[in-house]
């Protein structure tokens, strides 16, 4: 069964992966990081990504119908040279974490990464 580091290293094997982290969106704490971060600082990246994740998670506009957590699956950002994929992790205990994958746009495959990251998020907490 993978731990946090194994999970992030697995994410880094996706084509185009530049950096990956596990972030708590209430506090903005990075619980694990591998690879690079935009701007070179994982802590700043974690705080900014947490901000985005929290806003998306707390606004009812984006939630699926029903009350079952987590409210969201992914937040996807694209820019001129990269993608950011935030995958909410659904845990059986109380938590507010997501996996953040930073993907180069040239080599990356967003659809594949989205499916794989979802599988990794499940394996991380379900075994």
């Amino acid at each position, binding site marked *: *069964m993978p731990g946090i580091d194994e999970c992030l290293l697995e994410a880094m094997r996706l084509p185009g992966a530049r950096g990956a982290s596990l972030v708590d969106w*209430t506090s903005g*704490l990075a619980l694990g990081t591998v690879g690079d971060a935009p701007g070179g600082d994982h802590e700043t990246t974690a705080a900014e990504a947490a901000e985005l994740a929290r806003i998306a998670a707390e606004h009812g506009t984006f939630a699926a119908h029903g009350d079952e957590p987590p409210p969201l699956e992914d937040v996807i950002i694209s820019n001129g040279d990269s993608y950011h994929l935030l995958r909410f992790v659904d845990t*059986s205990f109380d938590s507010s974490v997501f996996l953040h994958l930073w993907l180069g746009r040239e080599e990356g495959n967003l659809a594949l990464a989205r499916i794989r990251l979802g599988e990794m998020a499940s394996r991380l907490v379900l075994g």
Partner: protein
Amino acid sequence: MVRTTPPALPVRDKQNTRALSPMLTRLAEERATGVLVREHGVLYLAEGRVVHAESPHAPGLDVLLTAHGTLAGAAWQRAAARTPGPLHAAELLLDSGVLPTGALELCHLDALYDAGYFALAPSSTPGRFRYDSAPRLGPLPSVPVVALERETLRRRLLLHRLWPDPAADSAPLIRADPAAGRTPAAGRAPAAPVAPRQRAVLDRVDGLRTAADIARNLGRQAFHTLVDVRRLTAAGHVSPTAPAPPVTAPLPPHPVTTDPDIALLKRLRDALEAL
């Protein structure tokens, strides 16, 4: 009504070299192994790294894992009975494979940073360190002292930005508006919307529970609960109850009964019943 966005999450200040506990800094430098007991919590160090933390203000790993059935309470108790402390119990659970590694690591880190935040809170008494070979670097992740200190400072700043008054952190909480949760009366502005995780906190505000009680009740990290409590306070949903006035009334100089034997026997009975 457009909701005002809460202030941005602060980033750790790497330039800030102010140590929260000079003793802890020294212990980290000498790569000490042992137990640091402070007023609001305990840090377990192995080779200068924090391997485990406990605080009466934060729910333990056992609460986080069992509150929502991730782990059966009996399974934790079996592991705890066979081991000297919660960290060892968690390692035993990891070994036995009853929990996914990632889930256990995540809960362990959550609990460590959570209790560590309170353990490093300003204290009125000096900490005591006991050299002890029991804490060791094990299979669960450990955290450098400096990382825990920086994160604790960042969390203090986060709470301060959300709502600068810490009174709601420790006092019993009360709903600021008795009509909260009902349809607002005609002509009254609706209260700011409450996010689902905040709603769980708000639902448990009853005039008696403190944030720590609510955290335990929810099986949620105490710091997460404080974030929601400060935000609910800032939005006007919740306020701390006024501290109880200190008991200044002098005790009656004599027991009501004038017979000294009966008065003594009554006090003795009351004391025994209180045991």
